[in-house]
């Protein structure tokens, strides 16, 4: 029984050379600097335009109406009409501009990150779950985009508006200005004291919802057990009590939220009342005009929103910072294998593989492969067997150049593989793994995956060779059937045959099979055997398998332990050894009645 390891997240370790959050954003925003500046200017203009109406109204009421200056009327009318029109147009361009920026930014960022992720080592992918990667690729990048489009513009606009409004308000009446100041302070105080409570309540609610969801997920995954034991009633009861708990917390959170917003509204309205009537009182004493009062009240209302938003900014920036840091972490991960700048281009390889004193380790203290030497001629089949952890799959990874050897060298057709162009080198390999790696696209495209330029006729021939005829006949659309929809598609055996067809089509010089039939039942495995034999005929192949029945006929069986070769030879040679380990393994499983090597 394995304990879960909380420290197994590689992203939690600091990686060297990680970019600072700001420089990451600037790097991706760089190409679009000019537009960004343009949008910022538009925002400033827009904010100023938005601040003008109260002044215009004041002018209207005081000067034009109050003093009867109807000569000014036409001029003012034109201005009053033009300004909102100009503002609306500015807003259109600003919105389009900032959205364009955000979209381009996130497009570039996601493309770069995705490419990068696909090229990272298998060890990285083994440690970092796909769900987490997707969260970062799609979720975090979306959050950064949101900040750039919505928050930056809003912050800038708030700044300009607040500055303008404050200046205007205080210049109209410093007495009322003081009252306004007190009101804002009370407002902010109310906000600060309540927000903690609200956040806390929200956190409690969210965690109770997490519990509820986990419970439901668990229950639904185990719905078979729930049914067979007739426990629907009990489970329903459990659900109801969890649901009630979460709803109680929801209610608490909602009440807290309402209290806060009602208090804010009260302060807001009382403040406004005070300012308005105070202003009118000042009108009576002759210190202000009525136009002044309306303008002042209008500006004071414009200050409350920004005041609250400013106090939120630090927290919002922190959230975004976390997202950016996560993205930077991923981008800082280095690829394991680098192509040399002067790499050789090669076409078809013949398939002569030679391991020369190959050594490999992931961690310098734990060698995985020690001094492995093997010479394989073209067309020879080699089986790698041994206990778990002896390095069989690692050898295959080295052969595919997913990692570079740390000692010795690996040669194919006489070339050290590190000298070859990666794309060309990998073209010469076909891979069938325990898990069929198929995609939600048509069968045709799936088979073509290794050889995108193949014709339909070629694909059909490959499918035929992989014994897929009966499967294709059952499907109404044949090769054009799209996989993966509704979750009920081909059986595992059929999927493996598809991967074999893919490999047949690619016609590689070297075949790699890593536990290709381990997940299949005996009957399916038998059905595949014919296809597999066709695939391996005449090609160099490396097979890792647990079922000894499948490797009886290979040219060479290599038994590994602790990263070294223990025994090597074909089946008859190894069986001839009286005290050979292979012989012992083979005999033991012959008698147990199940032809599997269980570790």
């Amino acid at each position: 029984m394995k304990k879960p390891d909380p420290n197994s997240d590689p992203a939690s370790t600091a990686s060297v050379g990680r970019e600072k959050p700001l420089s990451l954003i600037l790097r991706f925003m760089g190409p679009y600097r000019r537009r960004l500046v343009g949008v910022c200017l538009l925002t400033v203009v827009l904010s100023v335009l938005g601040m003008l109406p109260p002044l215009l109204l004041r002018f209207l009421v005081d000067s034009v109406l109050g003093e009867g200056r109807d000569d000014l009327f036409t001029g003012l009318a034109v201005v009053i009409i033009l300004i909102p029109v100009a503002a609306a147009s500015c807003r259109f361009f600003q919105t389009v501009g900032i959205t364009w920026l955000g979209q381009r930014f996130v497009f570039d960022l996601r493309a770069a990150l995705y490419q990068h992720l696909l090229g990272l080592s298998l060890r990285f992918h083994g440690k970092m779950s796909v769900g987490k990667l997707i969260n970062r690729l799609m979720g975090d990048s979306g959050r950064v985009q949101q900040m750039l489009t919505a928050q930056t513009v809003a912050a800038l606009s708030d700044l300009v508006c607040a500055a303008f409004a404050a200046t205007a308000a205080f210049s109209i009446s410093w007495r009322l200005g003081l009252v306004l100041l007190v009101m804002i302070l009370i407002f902010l105080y109310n906000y600060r004291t309540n927000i903690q409570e609200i956040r806390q309540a929200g956190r409690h609610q969210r965690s109770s919802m997490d519990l509820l969801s986990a419970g439901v997920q668990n229950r639904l995954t185990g719905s078979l057990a729930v049914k067979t034991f007739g426990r629907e009633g009990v489970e329903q009861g459990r659900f109801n009590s969890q649901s009630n708990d979460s709803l109680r917390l929801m209610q608490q959170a909602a009440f807290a939220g309402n209290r806060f917003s009602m208090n804010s509204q009260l302060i807001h309205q009382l403040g406004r009342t005070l300012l308005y009537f105070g202003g009118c009182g000042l009108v009576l004493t002759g210190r202000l005009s009525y136009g002044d009062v309306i303008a002042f009240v209008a500006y004071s209302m414009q200050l409350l929103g920004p005041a609250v938003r400013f106090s939120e900014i630090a927290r919002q920036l922190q959230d975004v910072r976390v997202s950016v840091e996560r993205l930077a972490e991923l981008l800082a991960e280095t690829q394991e294998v680098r192509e040399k700048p002067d790499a050789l281009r090669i076409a078809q390889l013949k398939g002569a593989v030679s391991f020369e004193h190959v050594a490999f380790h992931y961690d310098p203290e734990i060698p995985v492969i020690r001094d492995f030497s093997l010479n394989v001629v073209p067309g020879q089949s080699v089986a790698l067997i041994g206990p778990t952890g002896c390095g069989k799959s690692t050898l295959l990874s080295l052969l595919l150049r997913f990692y570079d050897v740390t000692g010795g060298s690996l040669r194919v057709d006489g070339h050290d593989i590190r000298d070859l162009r990666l794309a060309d080198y990998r073209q010469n390999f076909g891979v069938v793994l325990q898990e069929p790696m198929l995609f939600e696209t048509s069968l045709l495209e799936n088979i073509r995956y290794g050889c995108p330029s193949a014709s339909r006729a070629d694909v059909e021939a490959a499918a035929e060779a992989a014994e897929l005829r009966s499967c294709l006949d059952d499907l109404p659309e044949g090769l054009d059937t799209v996989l993966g929809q509704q979750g009920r598609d081909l059986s595992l055996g059929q999927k493996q045959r598809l991967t074999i067809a893919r490999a047949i089509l690619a016609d590689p010089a070297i075949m790699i099979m890593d536990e290709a039939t381990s997940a299949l039942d005996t009957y399916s495995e038998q059905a595949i055997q014919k296809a597999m034999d066709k695939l391996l005929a005449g090609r160099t192949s490396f097979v890792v398998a647990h079922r000894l029945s499948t490797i009886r006929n290979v040219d060479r069986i290599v038994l590994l332990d602790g990263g070294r070769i223990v025994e090597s030879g074909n089946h008859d040679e190894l069986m001839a050894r009286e005290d050979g380990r292979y012989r012992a393994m083979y005999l033991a499983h012959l008698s147990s009645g199940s032809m599997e090597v269980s570790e």
Partner: protein
Amino acid sequence: MKVRFHHRRYAFRPPRDVESFSFRGSRMLWMRFLKQYLRNDRKAILICFLLTALNANAVYLIAYYGRVVVDRVLMVQTVSPKQAGAVNVERDRGPRSGAPDPIISRRLEPRGWIVQCNPEAARDLTILFLLYLVTVLSLNVLTRISLKASIVIARRMVASMRSDLHKKILLLPLAYHKVHTPGRLLSRITSDIEQIQNMSQILLRLSASTFSMIIIGLVIVLFTEWRIGCLLLAVLPVYFVVFSRMRPSIREVNREMSHTNSCLYGLTAQKLESVKAVQAYHRFSGEKLHFHRLSALFLRDGLTLVQLRGRLQWTSEIISCLSTTGVLLGGAWLVLKGDLTIGRMLFLYETTAILFAPVMQLSWINILVTNIQVLLRRDYRILDEPLQIEDPPDAQPMPVPLCSGLCIQNVSFSYPEEERLVINDVSLFVPAGKWTCIIGESGSGKSTLLNLVARIDEPTAGSITYDDIPLEKIKTASLRSVTGFVPQEACIFSGTIRSNICYGMPRAQPAEIIAAAQAADLHHHIMEQPVKYETVIGEKGVSLSGGQRQRLSMARALITQPELIFLDDCTSALDAQTEKRIQKTLHHILTDRTALIVSQRISMAALCDQVIVLQKGSIVESGTPEELRQQNGYFADLERRQTGA
């Protein structure tokens, strides 16, 4: 403005399902929803509605106070140009004519407009101030009450909806659960209902405020100055026309974008899962292309969307600001002519400005209604799913102990919406007290047959009887209590080992638990753990190997000491030695009990009294193991292959 969608069929982006609503269908949906979940709270909902409307319309009242202040208290008046000159002279002279009360004229610095105050100005102002305060305070209190009430109503609604959905989902047959993943069902229960709740609350508030504000606003304007009122009545329809023309395109683009987004998630998930294949076949540029295509489509649609929205926004802003400034300027002109007081003018202006905000919000109401409808539809689809497995009123308890046996007659089964027969006209007799084994390749229908017999799925044709009592007439609860079922995929519930083993029998005694664990060859493993039976397993706990999970599953079934036991390939993850041990124990415990065992291992089949070979849903061979060996068919072949002979 029509949006033309260019070619957007790309790999990894299947076309979007276009849903359409009939108006009648959606009205029925709403009626159903309201009746089922909100019926009991109708009075409270009405009160909330009214209070919200009241609160929203209070702004008009406040604007009216402003008018009174300007016209009566402060008595701000305009001065015509002709009088302007005269006023300068008259300023210090004395009262102006036309005022209702004795007046005192004041000169104000620096602008020379007249404020004529009545001597009670200060008193009137104070009275108005207090009225204003009272209005504000009482409205605040009333709104608090209505908000609280709406939360309580929402809570009740969510509680019942969740409970109903969850209950229904648990009762639906296994075939349904196979098609609808737990994740998706979970989102129906939690996320969908949460969204319905949030949106309904907003809908209530919005509809209460917007409709009332628009109507009352129009009425006020019409009464105050009917000419301006008529102008507004002419403008508002234009607004709606523009809006209804642009909305459909916006909605289409939005849906396309959200579909592309979910395809992007799907694409990246698939490729990152199979990154080995991507690297082995070195398909980086191909993958880049796929991603780019979808991502670029998303970007293009995003720009189209912002253009459309921007245009709509611009148009509505222009309409509203032109209308309000029109009112302002028109009113100002009337004031200069002397037909309108300043107070009235400002009142009209404010009212019009207040009026346009809800007009723009009407669009939101439309969106909310549609969105809630989509969600309701999805949830009602689940609630309306027919429950196949229900006890009829004359249901009998399970006949225990079984006398003759289990009879399967001409049974066929296919998944809903599929034509392929998974089980094809199978007839079989399982004698009581004997072991029957079903073997066959994967996909032959073995597990499905077991599910039918255990009444987890319903056959689409044929009948199953226990001691001549049809399965439909047997009480499900009674059936469950005497059968033990060990599935292929063991499900572990979050909890302790003990709670997992006792799942079917919560009040099991420790001796019984240990006996079951020993029978499943699990006891010594458990004793090796520091906390033994209290070890926490499941998501947050220790993870078990495949073999251990299967054995736990078996212990779970065995603890209830069932009369009838169904085993579905329960030794596949075990090695040969452990399997032999378990077979021995099972043999010991289950002699004289009826067992139906599905397996791929010859070793298991050889122990049974009767063996059935299933191929593509039909029986091809049946008989005792010895008979089948003689027949030299699939069974004999399998035996040869598996024993390596």
